[in-house]
């Protein structure tokens, strides 16, 4: 059968072009790769190559013709023993298959941008959501496991808890290893990896040069091959050097590979402001990572949560960004003394139940939120306090249930206000609990400035307990 030579598209957006020049004539023999014509668009001139072997049977579009539609037949190629007589006089232009499908697709409603959790509320449906919207999987986190009766609680710093979590997981699974700057011989810049080199040796506790981009990529590659790396960033400020590997390589890999290649890796280290280290070393990246589908983002407050969730993160088949806080490293909390204390990813902790107002926070924000709660309760305000613990997937259900009860919500975090975790929760509450709100949802966040060095200014830049109390007074109309 003769082969049609079609007007090619140089890009998916091209619809027509000029057939500038024929480099062959009827009767010429051509081989694959031979340049047979030149076409022009407003952007470029392009050579057209023969794809099949044969003889140019008939040229149907003369050179110099403008506005030749993509996919229309320019000429006909004859195979061995085929004659030009078999060619129809004027073949009609064929519509582009993709364009045809595109037109059909345009009548289909756009899929919802909502993440799975948002389908919980009845008011969740955005205008224009049609029947064609594919349903998203429901995420329902497990509850915390019941602690054994009479379990001993031991006082422990967040630092010790993180260290124990890694040591326990490394004992249990040879595929788990840690790499990062100063994690081995120096025993950790913040001593989170203290003792690990002695117990597990240099094969599994790997000191790296100061090359975040490179070692993050090496960690992700090792994860592709089935290892379970823990990549420690000395602080998350330096992970910006590596964020391409975290997002473009780790977070998107499962999706891009159609489910074939997993990236079971944990990126961990201190996040947010420390103390008097200035703008480049004091930034909260929670909202950045929480934005990215494919990542799990965990930001614990207490030592028990740090331990139970880091163990869960190491076991997770997904890439996890585990955001610690330098100031909390030395804080002590009670941790259950158990052989294998693991907590569910994606479940918020109900710290205190109350009926007047919901305070939502995570990581060091919980410090301000807890102290404010204590004072407010003493003043007679029945606060409900929620520690998110995991930021992605976000346990919005727990927040929704709470706010539908209290009608008021204050969100506390150290990050900048625009595009913050609080902004997102606020939007979701507006979408899904609008009728239950008795006051505007209020965000307490870091000030919208780079972190200053001066002690007084730094203090002002961070949220504080008084701000939380003032916000609660405002939404409960007590001020």
């Amino acid at each position: 059968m003769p082969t049609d030579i079609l007007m090619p598209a140089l890009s998916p957006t091209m619809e027509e072009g000029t057939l500038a020049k024929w480099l062959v004539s009827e009767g010429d023999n051509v081989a694959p790769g031979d340049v047979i014509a030149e076409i022009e668009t407003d952007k470029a001139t392009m050579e057209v190559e023969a794809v099949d072997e044969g003889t140019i049977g008939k040229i149907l579009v003369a050179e110099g013709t403008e506005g030749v539609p993509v996919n229309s037949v320019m000429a006909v190629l004859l195979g061995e023993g085929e004659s030009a007589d078999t060619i129809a006089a004027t073949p009609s232009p064929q519509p582009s298959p993709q364009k045809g499908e595109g037109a059909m697709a345009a009548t289909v409603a756009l899929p919802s941008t909502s993440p799975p959790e948002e389908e919980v509320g009845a008011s969740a449906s955005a205008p224009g959501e049609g029947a064609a919207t594919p349903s998203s999987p429901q995420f329902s986190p497990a509850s915390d496991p019941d602690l054994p009766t009479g379990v001993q609680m031991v006082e422990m710093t967040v630092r010790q808890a993180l260290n124990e979590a890694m040591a326990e997981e490394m004992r249990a699974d040879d595929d788990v290893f840690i790499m990062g700057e100063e994690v081995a011989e120096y025993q950790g810049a913040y001593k989170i990896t203290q003792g690990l080199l002695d117990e597990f040796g240099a094969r599994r506790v790997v000191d790296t040069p100061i090359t975040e981009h490179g070692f993050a990529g090496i960690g992700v590659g090792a994860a592709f091959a089935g290892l379970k790396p823990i990549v420690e960033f000395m602080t998350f400020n330096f992970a910006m050097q590596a964020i391409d590997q975290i997002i473009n390589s780790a977070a998107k890999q499962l999706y891009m590979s159609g489910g074939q290649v997993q990236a079971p890796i944990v990126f961990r280290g201190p996040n947010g402001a420390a103390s008097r280290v200035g703008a480049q070393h004091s930034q909260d990246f929670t909202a950045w990572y929480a934005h990215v589908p494919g990542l799990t983002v965990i930001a614990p407050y207490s030592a028990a949560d740090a331990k139970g969730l880091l163990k869960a993160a190491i076991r997770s088949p997904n890439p996890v960004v585990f955001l610690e806080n330098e100031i909390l490293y030395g804080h002590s909390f009670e941790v259950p003394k158990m052989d294998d204390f693991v907590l569910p990813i994606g479940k918020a902790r109900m710290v205190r139940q109350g009926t007047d107002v919901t305070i939502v926070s995570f990581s060091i924000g919980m410090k301000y939120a807890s102290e404010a709660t204590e004072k407010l309760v003493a003043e007679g305000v029945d606060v409900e306090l929620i520690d998110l613990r995991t930021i992605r997937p976000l346990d919005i259900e727990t927040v929704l249930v709470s706010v539908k009860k209290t009608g008021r919500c204050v969100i506390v975090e150290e990050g900048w206000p625009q595009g913050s975790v609080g902004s997102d929760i606020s939007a979701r509450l507006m979408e899904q609990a609008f009728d239950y709100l008795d006051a505007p949802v209020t965000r307490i966040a870091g000030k919208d400035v780079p972190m200053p060095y001066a002690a007084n200014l730094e203090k002002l830049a961070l949220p504080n307990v008084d701000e939380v109390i003032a916000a609660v007074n405002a939404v409960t109309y007590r001020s």
Partner: protein
Amino acid sequence: MAKKAAARKTAATRKAPARKTAAAAGRRPSRSNAPALDKEQELYAYREMLLIRRFEEKAGQMYGMGLIGGFCHLYIGQEAVVTGVHMASKEGDASITGYRDHGHMLVAGIDPNGVMAELTGRASGLSKGKGGSMHMFSKEKNFYGGNGIVGAQVSLGTGLAFAYKYRGEDNVSLTYFGDGASNQGQVYESFNMAKLWDLPVVYIIENNKYAMGTSLERASAMTDLSQRGASFEIPGEKVDGMDVRYVHEAAQRAIAHARSGKGPYILEMLTYRYRGHSMSDPAKYRSRDEVQTMRSEHDPIEQVKQRILSEKHASEDELKSIEKEVRAVVTEAADFATNAPEPDVSELWTDVTILAGS
């Protein structure tokens, strides 16, 4: 699915023949001192390179018809690089490259139907239609992409090597990148750690002279890319990447080095792409003469073909029948990729994360 399975019927015949040295092959080299391939190897190389060439020509055609969207980077002209390296590798060795990845997948033995159907964005594509030309993977064939970010694959490939060493496995990571990527910072971070830890990785720089439209001379202060590992004491050599014999011989040396625990090795493959950087690149930054000279005097497939004929490894007719068979594979892939259904809309939400318990 039946159609997909059927396409693999040729897999057995496509297995790379066992390596032989020039001496063992006992053939008189056609160029003085050129390493030789035996009959089986020459025919294998011919078929593989032809498959890539015809596949890519077909992909270009289908792009022109609007069946393939987005970016599409063709490998035409560079076929000898992946073919020669693959012939020197062994089962289980990993490979990873950038966005010009179709050839790497075909030579790894990945189903052409699955590759073409990914290009057309169909459910039976290698990534269920969710990856596209630049994002394809095969865990089964240890092919890790298919990476759209220039240079990222160098750190990732080094990580694959890290895993081999960690587990005490004797496989190597074949990490491909271009002359453009060779200027990225993470490449040198990776070189440093690869040598520091003596990781089993072979860095194959496919120097096709142009990073998109910028020639090597205009982008690189030092253009001898084989020596880019010198600061880290990584050995490197320049290789005629248009001649599969030289590629194969150098790859054997590099892979043996990496496999024996001596650490990374750099091969700078001097190669050439006949087409533009991507389908929408008219390649006006180089002369038609330059392209024509490479095509007529250095074509990797033509070189093998002439040797096969002059050594009487096969007749014209036998080569024609290989050509015919390759064409049939490509035609089937194109038909398959054109007719396969698009992914079900429910696929929008799958493979984002692995949910607990699943």
